[in-house]
Protein backbone atom coordinates (compact mmCIF):
# COMPACT_ATOMS: atom_id res chain seq x y z
CA UNK A 1 0.00 0.00 0.00
CA UNK A 2 1.21 3.51 -0.77
CA UNK A 3 2.31 5.53 2.26
CA UNK A 4 -0.55 7.47 3.91
CA UNK A 5 -0.85 11.06 2.70
CA UNK A 6 -1.08 13.29 5.78
CA UNK A 7 -2.44 16.09 3.64
CA UNK A 8 -5.73 14.27 4.24
CA UNK A 9 -5.44 14.99 7.98
CA UNK A 10 -4.70 18.65 7.24
CA UNK A 11 -7.75 18.92 5.00
CA UNK A 12 -9.91 17.19 7.64
CA UNK A 13 -8.62 19.61 10.30
CA UNK A 14 -9.60 22.51 8.07
CA UNK A 15 -12.98 21.08 7.09
CA UNK A 16 -14.00 20.09 10.63
CA UNK A 17 -13.21 23.61 11.90
CA UNK A 18 -15.38 25.20 9.19
CA UNK A 19 -18.14 22.60 9.54
CA UNK A 20 -18.26 23.06 13.32
CA UNK A 21 -18.69 26.83 12.89
CA UNK A 22 -21.46 26.57 10.29
CA UNK A 23 -23.41 23.35 10.92
CA UNK A 24 -24.89 22.66 14.36
CA UNK A 25 -25.07 18.96 15.36
CA UNK A 26 -28.54 17.32 15.17
CA UNK A 27 -28.59 16.58 18.92
CA UNK A 28 -28.06 20.30 19.69
CA UNK A 29 -30.87 21.28 17.31
CA UNK A 30 -33.19 18.72 18.90
CA UNK A 31 -32.33 19.89 22.42
CA UNK A 32 -33.02 23.52 21.48
CA UNK A 33 -36.35 22.55 19.93
CA UNK A 34 -37.31 20.57 23.02
CA UNK A 35 -36.33 23.51 25.23
CA UNK A 36 -38.42 25.91 23.13
CA UNK A 37 -41.42 23.59 23.41
CA UNK A 38 -41.38 23.75 27.17
CA UNK A 39 -40.47 27.44 27.52
CA UNK A 40 -43.45 29.53 28.63
CA UNK A 41 -42.03 33.06 29.00
CA UNK A 42 -42.64 35.26 25.88
CA UNK A 43 -39.26 37.06 26.01
CA UNK A 44 -37.51 33.71 26.34
CA UNK A 45 -39.48 32.27 23.43
CA UNK A 46 -38.39 35.25 21.31
CA UNK A 47 -34.77 34.33 22.10
CA UNK A 48 -35.35 30.79 20.83
CA UNK A 49 -37.04 32.08 17.68
CA UNK A 50 -33.98 34.21 16.91
CA UNK A 51 -31.79 31.16 17.54
CA UNK A 52 -33.76 29.07 15.04
CA UNK A 53 -33.60 31.84 12.42
CA UNK A 54 -29.83 32.01 12.90
CA UNK A 55 -29.43 28.27 12.40
CA UNK A 56 -31.61 28.45 9.30
CA UNK A 57 -29.54 31.28 7.77
CA UNK A 58 -26.27 29.49 8.58
CA UNK A 59 -27.61 26.33 6.90
CA UNK A 60 -28.84 28.21 3.85
CA UNK A 61 -25.81 30.46 3.32
CA UNK A 62 -23.16 28.02 4.62
CA UNK A 63 -22.01 30.77 6.93
CA UNK A 64 -20.85 31.15 10.53
CA UNK A 65 -23.48 30.78 13.22
CA UNK A 66 -21.48 32.96 15.66
CA UNK A 67 -18.71 35.45 15.01
CA UNK A 68 -16.65 34.04 17.86
CA UNK A 69 -14.66 31.47 15.95
CA UNK A 70 -13.13 30.41 19.25
CA UNK A 71 -9.94 28.60 20.03
CA UNK A 72 -9.61 25.33 18.12
CA UNK A 73 -9.67 22.10 20.11
CA UNK A 74 -9.00 18.72 18.50
CA UNK A 75 -9.69 15.48 20.35
CA UNK A 76 -7.96 12.76 18.43
CA UNK A 77 -8.52 9.04 18.95
CA UNK A 78 -5.93 6.86 17.27
CA UNK A 79 -6.75 3.27 16.37
CA UNK A 80 -3.99 0.80 17.25
CA UNK A 81 -4.43 -1.30 14.10
CA UNK A 82 -2.61 1.18 11.84
CA UNK A 83 0.82 2.82 12.31
CA UNK A 84 -0.40 6.42 12.56
CA UNK A 85 2.38 9.04 12.78
CA UNK A 86 1.60 11.20 15.83
CA UNK A 87 4.01 14.00 14.91
CA UNK A 88 2.51 14.33 11.43
CA UNK A 89 -0.99 14.43 12.92
CA UNK A 90 -0.05 17.18 15.37
CA UNK A 91 1.53 19.46 12.78
CA UNK A 92 -1.23 18.85 10.22
CA UNK A 93 -3.98 19.73 12.70
CA UNK A 94 -2.33 23.07 13.37
CA UNK A 95 -1.86 23.77 9.67
CA UNK A 96 -5.47 22.80 8.94
CA UNK A 97 -6.77 25.19 11.62
CA UNK A 98 -4.65 28.00 10.18
CA UNK A 99 -5.86 27.30 6.65
CA UNK A 100 -9.50 27.21 7.74
CA UNK A 101 -9.06 30.67 9.26
CA UNK A 102 -7.28 32.25 6.31
CA UNK A 103 -8.98 30.45 3.44
CA UNK A 104 -12.64 30.65 4.58
CA UNK A 105 -11.77 33.41 5.74
CA UNK A 106 -12.96 34.12 9.28
CA UNK A 107 -11.69 36.10 12.25
CA UNK A 108 -8.74 34.49 14.00
CA UNK A 109 -9.41 34.64 17.73
CA UNK A 110 -6.01 33.53 19.06
CA UNK A 111 -3.64 36.09 20.51
CA UNK A 112 -0.34 36.32 22.43
CA UNK A 113 -1.26 36.39 26.14
CA UNK A 114 1.02 39.35 26.97
CA UNK A 115 1.52 41.40 23.82
CA UNK A 116 -2.06 40.67 22.68
CA UNK A 117 -0.85 40.49 19.07
CA UNK A 118 -3.31 38.44 17.02
CA UNK A 119 -1.65 36.53 14.16
CA UNK A 120 -5.10 35.97 12.52
CA UNK A 121 -4.36 32.26 12.25
CA UNK A 122 -6.36 30.82 15.21
CA UNK A 123 -3.16 29.04 16.26
CA UNK A 124 0.12 29.91 18.00
CA UNK A 125 2.24 28.51 20.84
CA UNK A 126 0.13 25.83 22.54
CA UNK A 127 -2.71 26.13 20.02
CA UNK A 128 -4.64 24.31 18.72
CA UNK A 129 -5.39 22.44 21.91
CA UNK A 130 -4.88 18.77 21.01
CA UNK A 131 -5.80 15.74 23.10
CA UNK A 132 -4.71 12.27 22.04
CA UNK A 133 -6.32 9.03 23.06
CA UNK A 134 -5.87 5.50 21.76
CA UNK A 135 -8.22 2.60 21.08
CA UNK A 136 -7.69 -0.99 20.03
CA UNK A 137 -9.54 -2.91 17.29
CA UNK A 138 -9.66 0.12 15.00
CA UNK A 139 -7.41 1.31 12.18
CA UNK A 140 -9.08 4.75 12.04
CA UNK A 141 -8.05 8.22 13.04
CA UNK A 142 -11.06 9.83 14.72
CA UNK A 143 -10.90 13.63 14.98
CA UNK A 144 -13.43 15.52 17.07
CA UNK A 145 -13.15 19.29 16.54
CA UNK A 146 -14.64 21.96 18.80
CA UNK A 147 -14.19 25.72 18.42
CA UNK A 148 -14.56 27.16 21.93
CA UNK A 149 -15.85 30.71 22.20
CA UNK A 150 -14.86 33.02 25.01
CA UNK A 151 -18.26 34.01 26.37
CA UNK A 152 -18.76 30.54 27.77
CA UNK A 153 -15.11 29.63 28.35
CA UNK A 154 -14.61 32.76 30.51
CA UNK A 155 -17.19 31.35 32.94
CA UNK A 156 -15.03 28.29 33.76
CA UNK A 157 -14.34 27.60 37.42
CA UNK A 158 -12.35 25.01 39.32
CA UNK A 159 -12.07 24.30 43.01
CA UNK A 160 -10.21 21.76 45.13
CA UNK A 161 -12.61 20.80 47.91
CA UNK A 162 -11.71 18.51 50.82
CA UNK A 163 -13.11 14.99 51.13
CA UNK A 164 -14.90 16.19 54.30
CA UNK A 165 -16.92 18.63 52.17
CA UNK A 166 -18.58 15.68 50.45
CA UNK A 167 -20.56 15.56 47.21
CA UNK A 168 -22.80 18.25 48.66
CA UNK A 169 -20.11 20.90 48.23
CA UNK A 170 -19.66 19.94 44.58
CA UNK A 171 -23.35 20.27 43.78
CA UNK A 172 -23.62 23.66 45.47
CA UNK A 173 -20.48 24.85 43.70
CA UNK A 174 -21.91 23.91 40.29
CA UNK A 175 -25.27 25.54 40.95
CA UNK A 176 -23.71 28.72 42.32
CA UNK A 177 -21.31 28.97 39.38
CA UNK A 178 -24.18 28.78 36.88
CA UNK A 179 -26.25 31.37 38.75
CA UNK A 180 -23.25 33.69 38.90
CA UNK A 181 -22.46 33.35 35.18
CA UNK A 182 -25.87 34.80 34.25
CA UNK A 183 -26.15 35.87 30.63
CA UNK A 184 -22.44 35.72 29.83
CA UNK A 185 -22.12 32.14 28.51
CA UNK A 186 -25.05 32.65 26.05
CA UNK A 187 -27.42 30.24 27.79
CA UNK A 188 -29.14 27.85 27.46
CA UNK A 189 -26.17 25.61 26.75
CA UNK A 190 -24.44 22.58 28.16
CA UNK A 191 -22.98 22.69 31.66
CA UNK A 192 -19.87 20.49 31.62
CA UNK A 193 -18.76 19.20 34.99
CA UNK A 194 -15.57 17.39 35.92
CA UNK A 195 -15.30 15.55 39.21
CA UNK A 196 -12.09 13.91 40.46
CA UNK A 197 -8.61 13.62 38.99
CA UNK A 198 -5.92 16.27 39.48
CA UNK A 199 -6.30 20.04 39.10
CA UNK A 200 -5.57 19.86 35.37
CA UNK A 201 -7.46 16.62 34.72
CA UNK A 202 -10.64 17.86 36.40
CA UNK A 203 -10.94 20.74 33.92
CA UNK A 204 -10.19 18.39 31.04
CA UNK A 205 -13.06 16.19 32.27
CA UNK A 206 -15.37 19.20 32.27
CA UNK A 207 -14.32 19.89 28.67
CA UNK A 208 -14.92 16.23 27.72
CA UNK A 209 -18.37 16.59 29.27
CA UNK A 210 -19.45 19.48 27.02
CA UNK A 211 -18.33 17.56 23.92
CA UNK A 212 -20.72 14.69 24.53
CA UNK A 213 -23.89 14.70 22.35
CA UNK A 214 -26.40 16.89 24.19
CA UNK A 215 -28.49 14.94 26.66
CA UNK A 216 -26.53 11.70 26.36
CA UNK A 217 -26.45 10.43 29.92
CA UNK A 218 -23.41 9.18 31.78
CA UNK A 219 -23.37 5.33 31.72
CA UNK A 220 -23.17 5.16 35.52
CA UNK A 221 -26.78 5.48 36.76
CA UNK A 222 -25.74 7.29 39.94
CA UNK A 223 -23.87 9.94 37.95
CA UNK A 224 -26.71 10.14 35.42
CA UNK A 225 -29.11 10.79 38.31
CA UNK A 226 -26.86 13.60 39.53
CA UNK A 227 -26.96 15.13 36.04
CA UNK A 228 -30.77 15.15 36.10
CA UNK A 229 -30.85 16.54 39.63
CA UNK A 230 -28.51 19.41 38.71
CA UNK A 231 -30.41 20.18 35.50
CA UNK A 232 -33.60 20.56 37.48
CA UNK A 233 -31.89 22.75 40.07
CA UNK A 234 -30.33 25.01 37.43
CA UNK A 235 -33.58 25.38 35.50
CA UNK A 236 -35.47 26.14 38.72
CA UNK A 237 -33.41 29.33 39.14
CA UNK A 238 -35.34 30.98 36.29
CA UNK A 239 -32.20 32.56 34.82
CA UNK A 240 -33.49 31.67 31.36
CA UNK A 241 -32.23 32.06 27.79
CA UNK A 242 -29.61 34.83 27.55
CA UNK A 243 -30.13 35.50 31.27
CA UNK A 244 -33.34 37.41 30.58
CA UNK A 245 -35.53 35.06 32.61
CA UNK A 246 -37.34 31.87 31.62
CA UNK A 247 -37.89 28.20 32.26
CA UNK A 248 -34.81 26.92 30.43
CA UNK A 249 -31.42 27.96 31.80
CA UNK A 250 -29.44 24.93 30.57
CA UNK A 251 -29.99 22.35 27.84
CA UNK A 252 -28.18 19.68 29.83
CA UNK A 253 -25.69 18.96 32.57
CA UNK A 254 -23.00 16.47 31.62
CA UNK A 255 -20.65 15.03 34.22
CA UNK A 256 -17.37 13.19 33.66
CA UNK A 257 -15.43 11.63 36.51
CA UNK A 258 -11.99 10.21 37.25
CA UNK A 259 -10.37 8.70 40.31
CA UNK A 260 -8.73 11.24 42.55
CA UNK A 261 -6.35 11.41 45.52
CA UNK A 262 -7.65 10.20 48.91
CA UNK A 263 -7.20 13.74 50.27
CA UNK A 264 -8.75 15.53 47.31
CA UNK A 265 -12.26 16.35 46.12
CA UNK A 266 -11.86 18.43 42.94
CA UNK A 267 -14.63 19.87 40.81
CA UNK A 268 -14.59 21.96 37.64
CA UNK A 269 -17.20 23.56 35.47
CA UNK A 270 -16.81 24.38 31.80
CA UNK A 271 -19.86 25.90 30.20
CA UNK A 272 -20.88 25.65 26.59
CA UNK A 273 -23.03 28.25 24.84
CA UNK A 274 -26.27 27.36 23.02
CA UNK A 275 -24.40 26.85 19.73
CA UNK A 276 -22.70 23.78 21.19
CA UNK A 277 -20.43 23.48 18.17
CA UNK A 278 -18.51 20.37 17.27
CA UNK A 279 -17.77 18.25 14.20
CA UNK A 280 -16.04 14.99 13.48
CA UNK A 281 -13.94 13.35 10.79
CA UNK A 282 -13.13 9.66 10.70
CA UNK A 283 -10.14 8.94 8.51
CA UNK A 284 -9.40 5.48 7.16
CA UNK A 285 -5.94 4.18 6.17
CA UNK A 286 -7.04 4.11 2.50
CA UNK A 287 -7.51 7.88 2.70
CA UNK A 288 -11.31 7.98 2.75
CA UNK A 289 -12.89 10.44 5.19
CA UNK A 290 -16.35 10.34 6.79
CA UNK A 291 -17.64 13.62 8.20
CA UNK A 292 -20.11 13.76 11.05
CA UNK A 293 -20.53 15.18 14.54
Amino acid sequence: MAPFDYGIVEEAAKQTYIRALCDLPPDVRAALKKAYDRETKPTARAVFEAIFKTIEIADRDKTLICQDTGLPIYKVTIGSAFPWNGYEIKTRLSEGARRATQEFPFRGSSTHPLTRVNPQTSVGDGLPVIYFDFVKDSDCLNILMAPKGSGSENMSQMRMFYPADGVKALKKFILDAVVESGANPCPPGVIGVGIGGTADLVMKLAKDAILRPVGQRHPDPAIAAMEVELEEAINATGRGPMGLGGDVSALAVHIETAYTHITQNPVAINTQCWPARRSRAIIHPNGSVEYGY
Partner: protein
Amino acid sequence: MPEYHLHSPFSEEDVRQLQAGDIVYFDGLLFGIRDLTQIYMFDQNHEPPVSLAGAPCIHTAPSLRKTADGKWQKICVGTTTSTRMNRFTPALIGRYGVRAIIGKGGLYKDSLEAMKTHGAVYLAIVGGAAALETQQIEEVEAVHWEHLHPEALYQFRVRDFGPLSVAMDSHGRNLYAEVRDEALRRLPEIYRKLGVA
Protein backbone atom coordinates in the same frame (compact mmCIF):
# COMPACT_ATOMS: atom_id res chain seq x y z
CA MET B 1 -45.38 41.79 25.24
CA PRO B 2 -45.30 45.10 23.30
CA GLU B 3 -43.24 45.10 20.13
CA TYR B 4 -41.82 48.30 18.61
CA HIS B 5 -40.50 49.00 15.11
CA LEU B 6 -38.34 52.11 15.27
CA HIS B 7 -36.14 54.13 12.97
CA SER B 8 -32.65 55.19 14.00
CA PRO B 9 -31.28 57.73 14.96
CA PHE B 10 -33.70 57.72 17.90
CA SER B 11 -35.35 60.65 19.64
CA GLU B 12 -35.59 60.84 23.41
CA GLU B 13 -39.33 60.03 23.10
CA ASP B 14 -38.51 56.90 21.07
CA VAL B 15 -36.53 55.40 23.93
CA ARG B 16 -38.50 56.84 26.86
CA GLN B 17 -41.60 54.92 25.72
CA LEU B 18 -39.75 51.59 26.02
CA GLN B 19 -40.22 49.48 29.14
CA ALA B 20 -38.08 46.59 30.37
CA GLY B 21 -39.26 43.41 28.65
CA ASP B 22 -40.47 45.09 25.44
CA ILE B 23 -39.23 43.81 22.09
CA VAL B 24 -37.65 46.20 19.59
CA TYR B 25 -36.75 46.01 15.89
CA PHE B 26 -35.31 49.01 14.06
CA ASP B 27 -34.14 50.30 10.68
CA GLY B 28 -31.46 52.84 9.92
CA LEU B 29 -28.17 53.83 11.47
CA LEU B 30 -26.14 51.58 13.78
CA PHE B 31 -22.60 52.10 15.07
CA GLY B 32 -20.31 49.22 15.97
CA ILE B 33 -17.90 49.80 18.85
CA ARG B 34 -15.69 47.64 21.03
CA ASP B 35 -13.12 47.82 23.86
CA LEU B 36 -10.36 49.43 21.81
CA THR B 37 -12.70 51.92 20.07
CA GLN B 38 -13.65 53.29 23.45
CA ILE B 39 -10.15 53.20 24.92
CA TYR B 40 -9.14 55.31 21.89
CA MET B 41 -12.07 57.68 22.40
CA PHE B 42 -12.04 58.15 26.13
CA ASP B 43 -8.58 57.22 27.42
CA GLN B 44 -6.66 58.64 24.46
CA ASN B 45 -9.03 61.57 23.87
CA HIS B 46 -9.98 61.19 20.22
CA GLU B 47 -13.20 62.86 19.14
CA PRO B 48 -15.37 60.66 16.89
CA PRO B 49 -15.26 61.89 13.27
CA VAL B 50 -19.04 61.42 13.00
CA SER B 51 -21.95 62.36 15.26
CA LEU B 52 -23.21 59.55 17.51
CA ALA B 53 -26.22 61.57 18.68
CA GLY B 54 -29.40 59.50 18.88
CA ALA B 55 -27.68 56.45 17.44
CA PRO B 56 -27.59 52.95 18.85
CA CYS B 57 -24.13 51.44 19.43
CA ILE B 58 -23.56 47.70 19.28
CA HIS B 59 -20.67 45.92 21.00
CA THR B 60 -18.98 44.08 18.17
CA ALA B 61 -15.70 43.21 16.47
CA PRO B 62 -16.92 42.41 12.98
CA SER B 63 -15.34 40.24 10.31
CA LEU B 64 -15.26 42.46 7.22
CA ARG B 65 -13.49 42.31 3.88
CA LYS B 66 -12.15 45.35 2.02
CA THR B 67 -12.67 45.11 -1.72
CA ALA B 68 -10.33 46.45 -4.41
CA ASP B 69 -12.43 49.62 -4.78
CA GLY B 70 -12.03 50.39 -1.06
CA LYS B 71 -15.53 49.31 0.01
CA TRP B 72 -16.14 47.18 3.06
CA GLN B 73 -18.14 43.97 2.79
CA LYS B 74 -19.61 42.11 5.72
CA ILE B 75 -18.48 38.56 6.45
CA CYS B 76 -19.81 38.03 9.96
CA VAL B 77 -21.01 40.58 12.49
CA GLY B 78 -21.87 39.34 15.97
CA THR B 79 -22.15 40.73 19.46
CA THR B 80 -19.79 40.50 22.40
CA THR B 81 -20.25 40.75 26.18
CA SER B 82 -21.01 44.32 27.26
CA THR B 83 -19.92 44.27 30.90
CA ARG B 84 -16.25 44.68 29.91
CA MET B 85 -17.08 48.08 28.43
CA ASN B 86 -19.26 49.40 31.25
CA ARG B 87 -16.86 52.13 32.32
CA PHE B 88 -17.16 54.00 29.01
CA THR B 89 -20.92 53.84 28.78
CA PRO B 90 -22.05 56.76 31.00
CA ALA B 91 -19.89 59.14 28.92
CA LEU B 92 -21.03 57.59 25.66
CA ILE B 93 -24.60 58.38 26.67
CA GLY B 94 -24.01 61.65 28.55
CA ARG B 95 -21.41 63.32 26.34
CA TYR B 96 -22.25 61.94 22.89
CA GLY B 97 -26.00 61.44 23.17
CA VAL B 98 -26.08 57.74 22.31
CA ARG B 99 -29.68 56.52 22.82
CA ALA B 100 -29.21 52.75 22.87
CA ILE B 101 -26.48 50.28 23.70
CA ILE B 102 -26.89 46.88 22.08
CA GLY B 103 -25.04 43.92 23.51
CA LYS B 104 -25.27 40.86 25.69
CA GLY B 105 -24.85 40.43 29.42
CA GLY B 106 -25.95 43.93 30.42
CA LEU B 107 -24.24 46.84 32.17
CA TYR B 108 -23.93 48.14 35.73
CA LYS B 109 -25.64 50.70 37.91
CA ASP B 110 -23.78 53.81 36.72
CA SER B 111 -24.80 53.05 33.14
CA LEU B 112 -28.40 52.52 34.25
CA GLU B 113 -28.26 55.92 35.99
CA ALA B 114 -26.99 57.59 32.81
CA MET B 115 -29.83 55.97 30.85
CA LYS B 116 -32.32 57.38 33.32
CA THR B 117 -30.78 60.85 33.34
CA HIS B 118 -30.27 61.30 29.60
CA GLY B 119 -32.87 58.97 28.07
CA ALA B 120 -31.26 55.82 26.73
CA VAL B 121 -31.82 52.05 26.86
CA TYR B 122 -29.86 48.81 26.81
CA LEU B 123 -31.14 46.39 24.19
CA ALA B 124 -30.19 42.75 24.65
CA ILE B 125 -29.47 40.83 21.48
CA VAL B 126 -29.32 37.05 21.26
CA GLY B 127 -25.65 36.22 21.70
CA GLY B 128 -24.28 33.71 19.24
CA ALA B 129 -26.87 34.62 16.63
CA ALA B 130 -24.38 36.33 14.33
CA ALA B 131 -25.72 34.78 11.14
CA LEU B 132 -29.03 36.56 11.75
CA GLU B 133 -27.40 39.87 12.67
CA THR B 134 -25.20 39.77 9.61
CA GLN B 135 -28.20 39.24 7.36
CA GLN B 136 -29.95 42.27 8.92
CA ILE B 137 -27.02 44.55 8.14
CA GLU B 138 -27.71 46.06 4.73
CA GLU B 139 -24.50 47.93 4.27
CA VAL B 140 -21.21 48.85 5.90
CA GLU B 141 -21.45 52.58 5.17
CA ALA B 142 -18.11 53.54 6.66
CA VAL B 143 -15.26 52.35 8.82
CA HIS B 144 -13.93 55.25 10.89
CA TRP B 145 -10.51 54.95 12.57
CA GLU B 146 -9.68 52.13 10.18
CA HIS B 147 -6.32 51.49 11.85
CA LEU B 148 -8.20 50.08 14.86
CA HIS B 149 -9.94 47.35 12.79
CA PRO B 150 -11.47 44.93 13.96
CA GLU B 151 -12.15 47.34 16.83
CA ALA B 152 -12.67 50.50 14.79
CA LEU B 153 -15.82 52.66 14.71
CA TYR B 154 -18.21 51.03 12.25
CA GLN B 155 -21.14 52.73 10.60
CA PHE B 156 -23.77 50.23 9.48
CA ARG B 157 -27.17 50.61 7.86
CA VAL B 158 -29.58 47.96 9.13
CA ARG B 159 -33.06 46.72 8.30
CA ASP B 160 -35.48 45.07 10.77
CA PHE B 161 -32.62 44.68 13.20
CA GLY B 162 -33.77 42.41 16.03
CA PRO B 163 -35.40 40.94 18.00
CA LEU B 164 -33.89 43.03 20.78
CA SER B 165 -35.18 42.87 24.35
CA VAL B 166 -35.28 46.05 26.39
CA ALA B 167 -33.15 44.73 29.23
CA MET B 168 -32.40 48.12 30.87
CA ASP B 169 -34.87 50.95 30.38
CA SER B 170 -34.72 54.70 30.97
CA HIS B 171 -36.92 54.42 34.08
CA GLY B 172 -34.42 52.56 36.24
CA ARG B 173 -35.44 48.99 35.53
CA ASN B 174 -32.78 46.35 34.87
CA LEU B 175 -34.08 42.96 33.75
CA TYR B 176 -30.76 41.23 34.41
CA ALA B 177 -30.73 42.42 38.01
CA GLU B 178 -34.38 41.45 38.45
CA VAL B 179 -33.77 37.94 37.09
CA ARG B 180 -30.65 37.56 39.25
CA ASP B 181 -32.48 38.73 42.38
CA GLU B 182 -35.31 36.33 41.65
CA ALA B 183 -32.79 33.46 41.25
CA LEU B 184 -31.18 34.40 44.58
CA ARG B 185 -34.61 34.48 46.21
CA ARG B 186 -35.33 30.96 44.92
CA LEU B 187 -31.90 29.54 45.83
CA PRO B 188 -32.52 28.52 49.49
CA GLU B 189 -35.44 26.33 48.38
CA ILE B 190 -33.40 24.85 45.52
CA TYR B 191 -30.50 24.15 47.94
CA ARG B 192 -32.91 22.40 50.26
CA LYS B 193 -34.29 20.22 47.47
CA LEU B 194 -30.78 19.40 46.26
CA GLY B 195 -29.78 18.49 49.81
CA VAL B 196 -26.95 21.03 49.99
CA ALA B 197 -28.50 23.56 52.38
